[in-house]
């Protein structure tokens, strides 16, 4: 009985790790193929470059996958992400943007400007891929520029 009680927290911890999973299997595929398909918004102000590099480094260590970067403009990249052709898009995004309900944003990686003129840089994931979203969110919190508040 005591042994069973002692095991309970361990079991709970194991269960904590079992959920969530990805409906479209992003995390499993990234580990299996060892490839992380990343879209980087081009021609945008690159204030998020340093934080993005730190994020990709962390994700590479975590998953054992190598990032394969493709550049483009934000809109086509997000559409590719929604189709499942990309795992991650790095771009500045307005929190009021209509994309907000169609994709999932990490906490801000970097920010520029103040108040009304504030622009934040995010890692963007496909909706519902909850394990993958959580992995990126965790890495993003650690990779973000110092002093960037969500």
């Amino acid at each position, binding site marked *: 009985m005591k042994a069973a009680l002692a095991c309970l927290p361990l079991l709970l911890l194991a269960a*904590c790790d079992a*959920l*969530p*999973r*990805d*409906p*479209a*299997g992003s995390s499993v595929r990234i580990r299996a193929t060892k490839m992380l398909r990343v879209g980087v918004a081009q021609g945008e102000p690159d204030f998020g470059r340093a934080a993005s590099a730190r994020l990709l480094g962390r994700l590479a260590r975590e998953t054992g996958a190598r990032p394969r970067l493709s550049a483009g403009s934000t809109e086509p990249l997000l559409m590719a992400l929604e189709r499942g052709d990309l795992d991650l898009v790095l771009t500045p995004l307005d929190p009021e943007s209509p994309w907000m309900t169609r994709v*999932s944003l990490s906490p801000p990686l970097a920010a520029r400007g103040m108040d009304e003129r504030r622009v934040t840089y995010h890692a963007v994931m*496909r*909706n*519902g*891929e*909850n*394990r993958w*979203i*959580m992995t990126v*969110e*965790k890495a993003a*919190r650690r990779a973000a520029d110092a002093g960037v508040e969500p």
Partner: protein
Amino acid sequence: MTTIADEFPPDIRDAMRGAERLQWWKIGWTVSIVAVMGLTMGQSQTMKTAWVEDLVSLVPSVAFLVAARMERRGARSKRFPFGFERANGLGFFLAAVALAATGALLLYDSVMTLVHVEHATVGSVRLLGHDIWLGWLMLAAQLYALVPPLIIGRKELPLAETLSDKLVHTDALMNKANWMTGAAGIAGVVGLGLGWWWADSVAAAVISLDIINDGVKALRSSTAELIDSAPRALSSPDLSDDAQALKARLQARYPAADIRLRETGRRIHAEVHGAAGPQEPIDAPDLWPAGEERLWRLAQIAFVPPRREVEAGRG
């Protein structure tokens, strides 16, 4: 001037005060649930609808408290010569609308999510230095939200029976709907965690059908009451057995008369059309089929004697 509640026996008045206390408790718990659920709701469909449902479940409680207060405090007056007997019936109607609307809303939302193949995102939060999946917090919130309606609903059913109160009964149904949605929500969030994006909405849709069923039944009874239909049973739109037995006894005593019964809140009114009433006091316990301790439900027996026909060519 007297109030409606003055005519009730003391144990019924006590039961009413008990029901009022229970509703205050329910409002307190519900407000805390709404707050906890609101904090953890995220993008989950079942969480969102469970939250709306918890909010809507305040309607029957508030309606009951207002109606009960009017019954207890509202004296008959020049402007309200019949007192506030029907306040409970109006509250019943409001509660029924709330219940049916909740079911419909839940169904619409979950079907829409399924149709649009929306994959709900449930991300993580940073709490006390740990990255925690928001789903675990949702599960905790749902578990918390499960308990009060379960207990309060169970306490309400016998009170509804004693008070013959359809409003309290509908609120008990609302509580049932609430904890069932909570259970479905738990299944939905776990399903979501397992990567079944549809689990959340399917669970919500199944539950909504049950809620709509209860809501429509309550809606039928309550509209019927407001338009002077024959008294209905507490939990269904079927005719009340007590009322039918009363009608049979009146009919046996006044075979030539037309007996009409209707219900105002928790009480029954009988009208005997086409018979002159007796001059001596009426022996109500003899006519009432449901035992002396429930006699308070018989509000009155009114007689409408036949009219003398106007002779042709007169005046």
